[in-house]
C-alpha cells in the first residue's frame, strides 16, 4: 500500500535520515551482493510468509517483489520504528540492520511482482472501482497502480492487505501524506467506505 505520493519523497527521506541512513554506498554494495548465498538465505526467511520470491497466494500477506529499493527500505524502517501497524513485521524488522535491509530490498526488487489469482475479489465492484480510482488515485498510483515508485504497488496487491492498510490510514494509526489525506477525505465524503471497497477490489483485480 502506498505511503507517499510521487514528488513527496522528502518526507520519508527525512524520516530515515533521522534514524539510520540508507546511502548510495550501501546500495552499491547490496547490488553486488544480490547473488550472494548469504542474501539468498536471509531472503529465505521472508518467503515462508510472503511466498516464493516474495509473491504469495494468501489474501493478507502482501507481495513484496518488484518494489523500488527505496520503498522496500522505507516500509522496513516504518516497521522497525513502530510507525506502521503490523502483526509480526515490527518484531521481525528489528532483526535486520540497514545493510541487511538494503540487501533484501535489492534482492526482492529484482524479482517480478506476480499478479496471482485472488478468487475473493468481488468482480461486481471492479468496473465502478476503476472509475473511482481514475478520479482519486491514478494521479499518484500511475499505470493502473503498477508503478511502485514512491507509492508502492497496488495493481494485483492482496485485497485483504490493502483493506488493512486503508483502515490504518483512516484511523490515523499510519501517517498519510497531505495529498493522500486530502484524497482519502474526498473519497470518504463523496462515496463513503463503499468507495474504498470498490477501488481496492479494482486494484486487486488488475493483471
Amino acid at each position, binding site marked *: 500500500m502506498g505511503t507517499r505520493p510521487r514528488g513527496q519523497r522528502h518526507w520519508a527521506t527525512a524520516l530515515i535520515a533521522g534514524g539510520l541512513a540508507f546511502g548510495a554506498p550501501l546500495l552499491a554494495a547490496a547490488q553486488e551482493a544480490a547473488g550472494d548465498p*548469504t542474501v539468498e*538465505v536471509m531472503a529465505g526467511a521472508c518467503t515462508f510468509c510472503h511466498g516464493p520470491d516474495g509473491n504469495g497466494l494468501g489474501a493478507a500477506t502482501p507481495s513484496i517483489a518488484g518494489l523500488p529499493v527505496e520503498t522496500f527500505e522505507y516500509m522496513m524502517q516504518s516497521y522497525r520504528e513502530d510507525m506502521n501497524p503490523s502483526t509480526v513485521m515490527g518484531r521481525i524488522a528489528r532483526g535486520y540492520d540497514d545493510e541487511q535491509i538494503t540487501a533484501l530490498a535489492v534482492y526482492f526488487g529484482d524479482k517480478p511482482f506476480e499478479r496471482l489469482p485472488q478468487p475473493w475479489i468481488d468482480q461486481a465492484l471492479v468496473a465502478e472501482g476503476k472509475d473511482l480510482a481514475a478520479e482519486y488515485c491514478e494521479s499518484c498510483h500511475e499505470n493502473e497502480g503498477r508503478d511502485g515508485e514512491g507509492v508502492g504497488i497496488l495493481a494485483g496487491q492482496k485485497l485483504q492487505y490493502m483493506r488493512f492498510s486503508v483502515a490504518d490510514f483512516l484511523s490515523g494509526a499510519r501517517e498519510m501524506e497531505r495529498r493522500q489525506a486530502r484524497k482519502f477525505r474526498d473519497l470518504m465524503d463523496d462515496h463513503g467506505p463503499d468507495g474504498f471497497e470498490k477501488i481496492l477490489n479494482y486494484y486487486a483485480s488488475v493483471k
Partner: protein
Amino acid sequence: MSITRRGFLTATAATATVLGVAGLPHIARAAGPRFVVVGGGPAGATTAKYLKRMDPAAEVTLIEANPTYTTCFMSNEVLAGDRDIATLQVGYDGLRGHGVTVVHDRVTGIDADAKTVATAGGESLAYDRVVVAPGIDFRYDAIEGYSAEAAEVMPHAWKAGPQTTLLRQQLEAMDDGGTVIVSGPPNPFRCPPGPYERISLIAHYLKRHKPRSKILVLDAKDKFSKMPLFLQAWEQFYGYGTDNSMIEWVSKTDGGTVTAVNPATMEVTAVAGTFKGDVVNIIPPQKAGALAFEAGLVEDGWAPVNKGTFESLVTPGVHVLGDSSVAASMPKSGSSANSQAKAAAAGALALAKGEAPPVPHLANACYSIGGPDFGFSVAAVYAYDDFENALKPVAGAGGVSPLDAGAEARRRELFYAHSWFENIKADIWG
C-alpha cells in the same frame, strides 16, 4: 544410479573432451554436485527445491516414502471441523517442475564412507552430500501401555493424516457431556504451541456442538509456548478460570505428567491419578525420526548439528535438519524448518564445491488460533554465532503478540495465519 562417482566423472570428462561442454547443457548439468535429500516434509522438500534454485547444475534426488504429504500445520482446524483435510495435502509435482528427481521409496541405509544411500526398492544412490530430514518419532516407551497400536484407539495426531481424521471422527462421535483428555508432552517437541492451539480449537468445536463437554489437559510441563495468550483466549471463549470452565489444565507440578494408558478402558494415569476419557489424545514425548537413529546421527534423542550448515556433528558429509535436529534456540516449527533448509542448501552446496558456507541469518514466525477471529503469534530473527555454534535471537527483535492488543489485531492475525499457510506450502512444495 549404477554408475559410480568415479566412473561417472570419467565418462563425462571424456565426452566433454570430444564434443565440447558448451553445446551440451545436459552434460554440463550432470557435472554439478549430487545431493540426496531424504524426507519430503517441510525441511527436506524446501532443501531439495532450494538446492536446485541455488545451483541449477546440481543433481538433486528427493526420497520420500509417500506420494502425498499432509501438513501438521492447520491440522487443528481440521479437528475443529473448520477445514477439509484435503487442503493440508500436497504432492511433489511442484518439486519435479523445479528439476528435482523425486523417488517414492524408503531409505534402508546411508553409507557415509562410500557416500551412498540404499533404498528398500534396491537402489543405491551416490551423493556428494546427503540431507536427512526424517521429522520426529515417538518415545512410546515413556508411557506404559502406549504404542503404535494403542494410537489407533488413543490417537496422537501429531503426524497429520489418518491420525488427524481418526481424532476428528472420535470428536464427532462423542456424546455431549463427554470428556476429552489431551496430554501435553515434555520439551523439546514438534510445534511447541501446537497442543494448546489444539485444545483451543477442540474447545471451539465442543462449545458449538457439545457444550456440556469438558477437556482435561494433563501436561508434563509447568508452562508452555504463548501461555498468557492461550490463557487469555481460554478465559475469553471457554470460561477458563471459572467454575464452568470447559478446559481444565493440570500442570506438571500438579501431577499432570502421564505415565500410563489403558486403551481397553480409556483410562489415562498421570502422577495426580487415573482419569477416564471418552476421547483420548496422547501427544507423546518425542525424539528424532527413525532414520536419524539408524544412520547413527543422534545423541540424547536428537541430532546435533553445525547450526550454520546443519551438517551433522557426528558424521561429516551428512546434513540433518528439521525437527530431528538440535537447532536451539529456534523452535521446531514449519517456518524454522523452511528457513533452516535454505541455510542447509546453501551450506551443502558451498561445502560440495569446497567453498566457505554462508553465515545464516534465519527467522521463525508462528501463528496460533485461540478462538473465532482470535489469532496471535511469536516471531524471532536468529543470527548464527559460529564461535558458540548457536542460533541466537537478535536482540531487540522478536517476541509474542502483545496481551493488550485489541480485537482487530487478533482478527488480523487470523488472516495472516491463513495467508502464511498458503504461502509456506507454495514456498516448500510449489
